[in-house]
């Protein structure tokens, strides 16, 4: 009996990491060139943006909320940074600062809607998502932004994406091999560590977990529930705008996009993260692993020429398995223990 329990415990704790290791071995054998530093960096780069967004989602999940607007915030930041540089002809620094401020402001509004107006989180952020998808297109009448585009008033936009801005998405630093690791990967790792430290080791982070598991108890214990919730949405908004800035730097133009895929991929990463190490709760480390897991799968499948629908299928299957790990296996254990 004891043996069986510990086996299940082991499966819950390490099952997902073992699955990931098996996957790496499988692709290493099946796809030539998969086990190289370059390939590893490609994977990290391909998940950098969704990973950063997923860490934002994690922050809202921790306080028992949910942010559906992150994809739209990211594409709004993409359009806004392009607009600031190409149309207003301002510097890279101002583009970044304006976007971060926009992300924080959207997060603040989301938080106020949820906390003060008592709008359920899914509905408030859904509304914000539609609002942003529309708003980002108004200044250009739905067109993408690039140097040389004509504006609605007939003039031509002459601003450029500054080199410093493009470097955010394109510059690579020497690590093992020269010009290997892109800055976006550094941002992902730094943000992941930052969010992890904040949530796991600071008093604020623990209070946020407490609010997520029992809001009333946390409130009675003296936590300022409303303020923490607003902060969580602001973190989410700011991280989403960081993702959008990196996207703009990689694309080099303001692409009209809804960001729905960004939203879905990052939510998937955060939910997969529940299963990592049997945490059964939103956590930064799991989220990063979840994003990496999806990235490894997609990279390996693409190297093996798998068409896009099999990739969607596999992504879905991984999510379902992860949720089973979280809710069925560890849920049962949790109740038994409780």
């Amino acid at each position, binding site marked *: 009996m004891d043996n069986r329990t510990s086996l299940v415990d082991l499966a819950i704790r390490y099952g997902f990491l073992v699955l990931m290791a098996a996957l790496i071995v499988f692709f290493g054998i099946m*796809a*030539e*060139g*998969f086990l*190289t530093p*370059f*390939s590893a960096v*490609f994977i990290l*780069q*391909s998940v950098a*943006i969704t990973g950063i967004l997923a860490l934002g989602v994690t922050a809202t999940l921790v306080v028992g909320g949910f942010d559906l607007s992150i994809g739209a915030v990211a*594409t709004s930041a*993409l359009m806004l940074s392009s607009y600031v540089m190409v149309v207003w002809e301002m510097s890279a620094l101002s583009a970044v600062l304006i976007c971060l401020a926009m992300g924080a402001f959207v997060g603040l509004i989301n938080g106020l809607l949820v906390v003060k107006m008592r709008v359920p989180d899914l509905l408030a952020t859904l509304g914000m998502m539609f609002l942003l998808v529309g708003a980002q297109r108004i200044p250009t*009448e*739905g*067109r*993408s932004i*690039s*140097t*040389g*585009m*004509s504006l609605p008033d007939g003039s*031509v936009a002459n601003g450029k994406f500054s080199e410093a801005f493009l470097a955010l998405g*394109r510059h690579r630093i020497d690590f093992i091999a020269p*010009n290997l690791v*892109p800055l976006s990967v550094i941002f992902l790792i730094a943000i992941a560590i930052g969010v992890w430290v904040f949530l796991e080791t600071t008093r604020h982070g623990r209070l946020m977990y407490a609010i997520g598991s029992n809001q009333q108890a946390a409130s009675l214990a003296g936590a300022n529930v409303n303020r923490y919730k607003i902060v969580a949405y602001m973190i989410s908004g700011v991280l989403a705008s960081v993702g959008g800035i990196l*996207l703009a730097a*990689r*694309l*080099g*133009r303001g*692409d*009209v*996009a*809804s*960001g*729905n*895929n*960004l939203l879905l991929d990052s939510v998937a990463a955060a939910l997969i993260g529940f299963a990592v190490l049997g945490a059964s709760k939103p956590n930064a480390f799991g989220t990063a692993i979840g994003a990496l897991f999806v990235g490894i799968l*997609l*990279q390996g499948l*693409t*190297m*093996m*020429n798998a*068409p*896009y629908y099999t*990739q969607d299928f596999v992504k879905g299957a991984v999510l379902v398995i992860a949720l089973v790990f979280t809710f069925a296996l560890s849920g049962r254990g949790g109740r038994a223990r409780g």
Partner: protein
Amino acid sequence: MISRRLFTGLIGSVAMMPGLAFGADMPAPFDNPGAVKIALVRYLSTGDFFQAYLSGVEKQAAAIGVDLRVLDSRQDAALQSDMVDQAIALGVDGIIIQHGLTESMKDAAQRAVDAGIKVVAFDVNVDNAAIPQVEQSDRDLARLALEQALKDNGTSFTAGYVYVPGIAPLDRRDETWQKVKADNPGINQVAEFGTLDNPIANSVANQARSALSANPDITVMFAPYDEFAKGVKIAVDEAEMSGKVSIYSADVSTSDIAAMREDGSAWKATAATNPAVVGEVSVRTLAMLLAGEDPGHNVIVPPTLITQQMLNDLDITNMEDLSAKVPAFAHADVSVPGWMPLPQR
């Protein structure tokens, strides 16, 4: 009391001054500016292509002096069909159906024809002998780009291909690619990938990176949609392979022009039909029907080949430049009877 028709006429004649000047020379019903009402019923509207298409429709409608209503179903097939009925109820004289699904639009189009309304369809097959089909020739687009690829790279090369099946224009472009491969056995396609996940260029870049690292011997990438090509270019740049790989694509936009003209850009050529011209042709075809003339059942707008060298030689920086300096791109001599006023350029 001012009647509604007179009122629209007045508004129309003020708004459509060029139409007024031509009015006298045009056949009925266009001799009375503003008296003709047409509707554009759209299925797709988001993105540069569809914005440009709309601007072409608006300009040509203004040049002829017709009153244009735009009904946008935003990818809702059922709503688009309802909108045709709405246009019938509005009492329009002509309808342009822009994209959509054959299954949902076929009956709606027939109802409009039964109501005595002239109908033109763009890029959607409504399966109706009375309705001319305006098309940009996707097969020609792919053919032009691939001919350039064969010219630049010879008939033997290792190729990567970006494709998402089930999208009508991409399927038609794929037919040409399959045929070119069959005719040139020296072409060795080692990788095929593609996705329409938003933002498309970013998702395709991730895939192309994987494909390039798995197959570093690829020298030609055929990406027959500009968002695909943009993604492949990002991947090629990141892999520092732009000296080695050449990209051939279809469609064009201002940002594509900038990407093609970057120093050492791998994006060598694209074939494109000007969406604004397609919009103009759609309106002219409808106008011919309304005037009782026969535009033919298949109205095909021919594409133009745009090479990196041509952009550099003519110093073209945006779509306006392209129209100004490459006349074939600015105007298609399709559906242009003698009386037809053209938009001012």
